[in-house]
């Protein structure tokens, strides 16, 4: 059996002294999508941040191709494309400037791929607009275009469908499917249905500080 590209073992996280998730383990292979579901406050965002290395986990390891990512965080960060709650865009820069700068900050050069990313999220007409003049959905599309542009093998997405209208959701789905078909991995925290075949991981509720932390319950199946 081929070991999964991404292997999470016994990951635990505390926020403000409260356990968010405890001893979480899962693996993800090339071309696989993992949808994180669960109530508000169940730790979806915390899990994404822990995976990215933004918050040090209390216990557990994240391994990529069998190597603990904590050994070489810079290489690990280079493998990630991140979409958080906040878009990470500069309002005073245009769409195309934002994308080009973000790609260079990742150490790459956008070049010809820039047009492809703009087309993928239907942003061609907005390319020269300053981001602060855009609507919430258009900003979200710009942030998603940044993820598409990155060519990173692992996408970490926090509520990617937020504020997107139906055509934009379809465009995002197409881009995500292309990413998965090319052997990429994606982990998306979501309330809405992604509409793509994939696995899902339901994070346990942490209703009060006294309730025991529930580990993640993983089940294979269709997210949609």
């Amino acid at each position, binding site marked *: 059996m081929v070991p999964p590209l991404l292997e999470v073992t016994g990951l635990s996280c505390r926020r403000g002294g409260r356990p968010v998730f405890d001893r979480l383990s899962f693996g993800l292979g090339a071309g696989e999508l993992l949808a994180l579901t669960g109530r508000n406050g169940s730790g979806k965002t915390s899990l994404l*941040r822990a995976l*990215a*290395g*933004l*918050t*040090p986990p209390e216990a557990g390891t994240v391994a990529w191709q069998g190597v603990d990512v904590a050994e070489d965080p*810079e*290489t690990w*960060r*280079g493998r*990630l494309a*991140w979409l*958080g*709650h*906040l*878009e*990470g*865009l*500069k*309002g*005073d*820069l245009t769409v195309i*400037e934002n994308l080009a*700068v*973000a790609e*260079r*900050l*990742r*150490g790459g*050069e956008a070049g010809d791929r820039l047009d492809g990313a703009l087309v993928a999220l239907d942003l061609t007409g907005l390319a020269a607009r300053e981001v602060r003049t855009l609507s919430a959905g258009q900003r979200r599309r710009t942030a998603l275009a940044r993820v598409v542009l990155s060519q990173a093998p692992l996408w970490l997405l926090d509520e990617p469908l937020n504020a997107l209208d139906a055509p934009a959701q379809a465009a995002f789905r197409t881009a995500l499917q292309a990413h998965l078909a090319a052997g990429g991995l994606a982990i998306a925290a979501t309330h809405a249905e992604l509409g793509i075949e994939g696995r899902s991981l339901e994070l346990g509720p942490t209703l009060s500080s006294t309730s025991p932390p529930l580990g993640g319950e993983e089940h294979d199946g269709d997210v949609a």
Partner: protein
Amino acid sequence: MSGFTTLLMRDLRLVLRRPGDVGVVLAFFVVATVLFPLGIGPETNVLARIAAGVLWCAALFAALLSLERLFAADYEDGTLDLLLLAPWPLELAALAKCLAHWIVTGLPLSLLAPVLGVAFGLDGQSLLALGATLLVGTPTLSLIGGLAAALTLGARKSGALLALLALPLCVPTLIFGAGAIETLAAGDGIVTHVAILAALALVALATTPWAIAAALRQAGE
């Protein structure tokens, strides 16, 4: 283009898009210093003696004025996460941000100060010395201020807290910066003072980027 230059150019471009932000800082510097001759009166002896101290203090306050937004803007729009996740050292990103801050505040303040020094009746040699000491000393202010800005990230009333943190740390730079002009008036050279200012800047350069990066990682958690 490396991440460092990309970030530097991005911050400079952002300032160019909103030149008013820098304009306010420079205008504050001008107004604050010009108030002293008006308040104290036209006694050239007194004015020339306090000129260096006043200009140095005003430059310090003006630099602090713009520091509050140094990391806060990135923190609020989520670009800080992208810097934290960039595949190159965060210490370099911290340095790029401080360098951008110095280029848009420290540098123009250093060039503007000798012009304002004329209003205090400073002689030509003192004006040159003033510009030179500010040029060597202001990078320290940007670096120490950057650290204070990173430490106060996400705090309420971060502006006041930032000043409380940064001002005491800037005292050595202030003493040797303003002291240089006095030594010059006493007939000695300013080489020692400039050398000490440069040493302070190098110490700040060698320490603050790591401290800023650590503070930013904390803020990102």
